[in-house]
């Protein structure tokens, strides 16, 4: 009896063409119903939610459908005295949302509506003795925050304010036996963290410190028989890893180690043809009954914590794992997060209907060109 391969099965009826217009409609309408349950519960990450929505719209050439003025005013109201920016009004500032805000303002070429110097001070102030970055004044350390810090400063043209040697030293101290990176020194490799660390090393010009062959192997082993990518060994595939794994591979020059056609099929299968948007996995709207007269209905409300720790999404998922009962999906729910990463992943795979996306910043390349940022990638 061997270990079962955790994976999904893509049904033949799953979507296999890109439904860009539907996705644009979905995002444009998202958040307009402010009394939506999931929307309200995700207020604690609103700034990132806006960044996801705007970025995917821009990648689809539909940014103009979003309410620029309202968003800019919103961002202004979220900058605190310390310089940091919060996810929403009344929430506390944090590096995660400071980065999202700066990314949004970069998209809109309106960076000066906030106090940039104070943002820089805020970021600088979060660097610790050992070079790491805390997420906020409460001291949680994570390589995600190292990435947020340098990405923010790079977009503002102020990378020189931090102690670069130490910052790099800390991130490298999080490199593991498999070539990957974790949250902190000693933490297990995880695709989300690997994205943050390779992105960090790209921005700081230290990509040559990565063992690209070893890490590239670990990353290409994320691809499962369904074509989808997981975030670490023995986990289910998820469309957001199509971004984090793929972007990391692109950064280290090994994107050709993925089976692109299979991944594309997987991503497309994650679309919802009715509502638009992408879910984390391929879905099926109808519950089918099994021919053995037994209806198993195990409803598990799984709180899906996305690797960047930014969202809890309610996913109604019914899983029957086992030798005889394949995975059965009932309704799955789309969200802007997975929509962005599905579309961005397709862009990295070369889909010409989508604007080229920068693998380090997850922003349209033309925005970064305008700013003058071209972070290194390995060959």
């Amino acid at each position, binding site marked *: 009896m061997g270990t079962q391969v955790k994976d999904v099965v893509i049904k033949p009826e799953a979507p296999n063409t890109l439904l860009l217009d539907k996705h644009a409609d979905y995002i444009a309408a998202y958040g307009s119903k402010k*009394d939506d349950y999931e929307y309200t519960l995700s207020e*604690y990450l609103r700034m990132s939610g806006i960044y996801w929505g705007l970025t995917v719209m821009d990648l689809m050439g539909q940014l103009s459908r979003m309410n620029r003025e309202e968003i800019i005013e919103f961002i202004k109201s979220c900058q605190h005295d310390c310089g940091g920016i919060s996810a929403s009004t009344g929430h506390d500032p944090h590096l995660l949302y400071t980065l999202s805000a700066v990314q949004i303002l970069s998209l809109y070429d309106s960076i000066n509506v906030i106090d940039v110097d104070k943002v820089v001070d805020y970021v600088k102030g979060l660097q610790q003795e050992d070079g790491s970055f805390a997420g906020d004044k409460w001291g949680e350390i994570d390589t995600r925050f190292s990435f947020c810090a340098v990405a923010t400063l790079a977009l503002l043209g102020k990378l020189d304010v931090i102690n670069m040697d130490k910052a790099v030293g800390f991130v490298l101290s999080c490199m593991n*036996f498999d070539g990957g990176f974790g949250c902190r020194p000693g933490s297990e490799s995880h695709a989300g963290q690997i994205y943050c660390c390779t992105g960090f090393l790209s921005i700081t010009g230290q990509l040559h410190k990565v063992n690209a062959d070893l890490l590239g192997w670990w990353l290409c*082993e994320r691809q499962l028989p369904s074509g989808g990518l997981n975030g670490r060994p023995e986990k289910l595939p998820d469309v957001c890893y199509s971004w984090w794994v793929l972007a990391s591979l692109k950064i280290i020059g090994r994107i050709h180690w993925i089976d692109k056609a299979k991944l594309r099929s997987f991503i497309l299968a994650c679309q919802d043809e009715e509502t638009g948007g992408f879910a984390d996995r391929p879905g099926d709207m109808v519950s089918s009954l099994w021919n053995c007269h037994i*209806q198993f209905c195990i409803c598990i409300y799984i709180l899906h*914590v996305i690797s960047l720790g930014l*969202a809890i999404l309610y996913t109604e998922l019914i899983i029957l794992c086992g030798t005889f009962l394949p995975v059965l999906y009932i309704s799955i729910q789309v969200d802007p997060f997975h929509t962005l990463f599905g579309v961005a992943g397709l862009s990295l795979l070369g889909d010409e209907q989508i604007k080229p996306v920068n693998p380090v910043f997850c922003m349209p390349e033309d925005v970064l060109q305008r700013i003058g940022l071209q972070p290194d990638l390995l060959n």
Partner: protein
Amino acid sequence: MHGRVKIKSTAQQEEEKRKEKEKKLKAFVSARDAVLKKRSAGEHDEEALQLTRQLLSSNPDFATLWNYRREVLLHLETLREKDEVQKLYESELHFIEACLKVNPKSYGCWHHRTWVNTRLPQPDWTRELGLCDRCLSLDERNFHCWDYRRVVVKASGVSVEQELQFTDRLIGSNFSNYSSWHYRSTLLPQLHPQPAPDSAPNTKYELSHNAFFTDPNDQSAWFYYRWLLGRAEREEMISCVYVSREGERVSVAFSKPLCKVYNMYSLFIHTLMHKIFNCLCQLCDLPPGSISDMSNEHNLTIHWTEKHTHRDCNLDDLHVCVCICGRSELSVEKSSVLQAELQSCNQLLELEPQNKWCLLTIILLMRALDPLGHEKETLAHFQTLKEVDPMRSTYYSDLCSKFLIENTILKMEYAEVRVFSLSNKNLTTLCHLDQLLFVTHINLSSNQLLRLPPHFAMLQCLEVLEADDNAIENLEGLYHLPKLEEVSLRNNRILFSKKSKCFIRNCFSGVKSQCLVWPCFKDSVFFIN
């Protein structure tokens, strides 16, 4: 009939769901508004704890609420005696544990627990370790819990041996244990820091070996094993030194780009020191005249101070010295251990001929033992690998190319003409160019190369390049080769950029003193942009 659940009609189900959500939403919004109002009023009291408790139990990622809670707790600390503070935070730990039961993967929860332990007058690390044990028994892959465990272990001084035993137990339970193997990889070097290349404690292979023999599809053990195999390999910093007394030239090729220099590193030649200021370059040309005063010297030593490494060179009659890093020799002991491992893996392969992990591991073992002797077998295994694991064929092709290049370097002879020839070998990538500094002739024809990468510029002695019948698009690698005389690039896919056209024009116009033969033009497939 047991287990039958009534599935209501879709419309009815939808309406009920909608009403339920509306109710929940109302409750959430009113609680949230109450809390935020209280906070802006600066109230740090029990009621604040109650309200945030309510919300955080089902919304543990609402980070601002944890912050508020901490502010309240810090304030209450100032009002209470030490033993009350102890109780206060212990009750907080109970609350966090309840939250963790609902959502064991909330960053906010785990961080708050870490924070609470910094405030507790008397933290109970045994209890915390127990919590980790329980949590990991429910989900062995919960990295939040593993990270927290590392905090607890560090704070309470649990020994490395004890933790290794813990991983043994978990690995022994034979189920989704990558996290345990990972933990081992951090613990082992604490007990046995960087082993010498010839050391062979064979017990270190045993655990992973047993794991993948018990379950050949348990990928974690194979990943770990690959690490063990590579662990004792030492990567040389200096790949190659080329000295030409006549040409007054000293070139040093490094295996990796030099660090972005915030400090200065030094390269010593003999006793003369040369400071290196370059960032990110892999090839250092020393200024002409660096060795002019050494006409009577026959030995040359290059020291690189960053890694305290050096290379010794003997200047021969030709006044050209070439030295490259060789492979470290395996001790008899290590060799026999690896041989036994190879044998076992081959036995496993007989039982599981389609097991890609086994195939790849056999390749790696053969390379460790005798790369040249096993070359044919290695190529056959790579072919099988591409068949059983087609999604990763490009990876296997690149890896195979790398090994072929390594073998060719091993077989190279050093004379006045130094030839590197790898034609018709399905090469998909080029690497180790730092070790080809002194090569004069290269034949890469009939392969699947897409480019001559910028690192091709390392081939400073290259006189003749044959690379017909590839898919090369880009000539960038050729721009900085001072000795290049002959190039053949028939049947490629060269995209002529402005720069490449200029390069070719200069060659033909005789700006470069060498004569450049370019027989490829009429036969090439090219696109002009």
